[in-house]
């Protein structure tokens, strides 16, 4: 695959606006619904902005286009950020997000493929990567050049099914597959390193036959650069360890497991919105 097939990538400023809009929309959605996981949504907002801000080949008016890049949000609890990104990208109007987590809504609290642009429903951790392996294997067998991208959380790597899939993708040299790990270092109750030690994480993926890169998961230029490099890897699946901060963008939410659960209301919501202007 040559760089020539890549879509035009938005300017850095546009990506920054995109990321801010993801955070603002996700915050409004989770606050209105009084739902959890805003910290997880903020953690991956910049990654989603880079992907949907231009890197992923998608057609918002034709969500099922067979030539699209597939994207699976394996950390499905950050669905608010994904829905926000899809609305910003034009898959549906932003007003639709008001139904998030509401009665009878397709915008479930965990990613639902009933929503235009969502390739796979998730919510239970450890599913996205093996499913992505199946999609990437099909692309490899059929000599198609679209990519399959799966966004995982670092805590999610506790799930054994991921390691089955990591072994599988390395063995079958699924070079159409890119995994991004949102490494915010926190999981449900405590730090990932206190719960089940993951480091040295890059060495683990490398040992399974993957091309691995690390970057600042909030630095758009760095993310874009490493994703483009990953796109051109041949003979190996690629893994990007995006070092992030849970709750990034709102000071009192950063690096706190509390905001895995809490939804911002009243003064907290006002303060958070002000910080995201």
């Amino acid at each position, binding site marked *: 695959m040559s760089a020539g097939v890549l879509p035009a990538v938005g300017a850095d400023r546009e990506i920054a606006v995109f990321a801010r809009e993801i955070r603002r929309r996700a915050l409004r959605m989770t606050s209105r619904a009084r739902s959890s996981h805003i910290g997880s949504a903020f953690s991956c907002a910049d990654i989603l902005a880079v992907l949907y801000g231009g890197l992923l080949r998608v057609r918002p008016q034709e969500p099922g286009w067979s030539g699209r890049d597939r994207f699976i949000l394996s950390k499905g609890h950050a669905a608010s950020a994904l829905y926000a990104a899809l609305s910003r990208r034009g898959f549906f109007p932003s007003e639709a997000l008001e139904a998030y987590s509401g009665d009878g809504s397709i915008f479930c609290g965990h990613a639902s493929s009933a929503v235009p642009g969502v390739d796979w429903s998730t919510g239970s951790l450890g599913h996205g990567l*093996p499913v992505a*392996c*199946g*999609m990437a294997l099909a*692309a490899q067998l059929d000599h198609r050049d679209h990519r399959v991208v799966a966004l995982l959380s670092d805590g999610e790597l506790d799930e054994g099914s991921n390691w089955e*899939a990591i*072994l*599988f993708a390395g063995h079958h040299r699924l070079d159409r597959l890119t995994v991004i790990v949102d490494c915010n270092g926190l999981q449900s109750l405590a730090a990932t390193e206190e719960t089940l030690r993951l480091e040295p994480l890059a060495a683990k993926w490398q040992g399974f036959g993957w091309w691995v890169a690390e970057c600042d998961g909030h630095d758009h230029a760095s993310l874009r650069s490493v994703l483009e490099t990953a796109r051109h890897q041949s003979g190996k699946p690629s893994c990007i360890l995006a070092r992030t901060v849970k709750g990034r963008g709102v000071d009192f939410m950063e690096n706190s497991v509390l905001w895995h659960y809490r939804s911002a209301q009243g003064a907290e919501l006002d303060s958070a919105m002000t910080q995201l202007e």
Partner: protein
Amino acid sequence: MRKPFVETLENAAEQNPDIFLITGDLGFGVLEPFARRFPRQFLNAGIAEQSMTALAAGLAREGRVVFTYSIANFSALRPLEFVRNDICGHQANVKIVGLGGGFSYGALGFSHHATEDLAVMSALPGMTVIAPGDDYEARELTRLLAAHSGPAYLRLDCPSAPACARTEVALGRASQLRDGRDVTLVATGAILSECWTASELLSDRGIECRVLSMHTLAPIDRAAIRGAAEQTGGIITVEEHSSKGGLGTAAAEVIADEDLRPQSFLRLGIRNPAECVSGCQDFLRRRHGLDSASIAGRVENLLRTTGRARERAL
């Protein structure tokens, strides 16, 4: 039933390049011809059933008709939540093949006894659940499943069951092997052969049975249950499976839902699947009262009891 399955799938794979067979590292001496003939339609996912199931769903999303293949507890129960979320939740075109129904692997012990697979698979949304009664049905149902759209579970018994069915096979419709008015024996899976033999023993004693192969457990053939309730002297379900949640339970649901009043109703299955006893399939069937002689005896007792009850009522 493994060979009839694989041979039929080979025919299907020849006609449809989207047919794809994934094994969880099982099938020695059985799958090699398929793997040799269709290397681009075959994959060994390794001993990794969660990943196998999820990647099958991913392949199905891209247009493949995927069959996953392993011993029943490994293909169906080990990755259960993957079956539920990735296959059923997306109505993916994946057929889970579970080898060794009931006590097919009797001597291998509890880990290899498939005694809850039908109940668990039947509870899943949109899952078609199939347990062929013999090799003939295994062939026909494999052929039908290859052309079927959506999730399915195919329970295969091994070693091969003796063929006793020669009727037309249709998904969702019970096959009637013989007719009789005294009672209906309904079987799912290869225990059908015991029911067939029981019906012959009973015929010698003047009791004529209707014998049904309920090879499609979900969705169950409600008309066949209704017909058995209304036209014969009772219903006896027989399954090499836990007595909870399988054929007997499904038949009872139909009876309750449709307010049927069979003159008698008896569910024969395995009452204590967790009993850790080794033994060949025939031994374990006898131990659990699922051999032809035991079935025939239960039918005679039931008819005697209900006959006496009717006499008392008169």
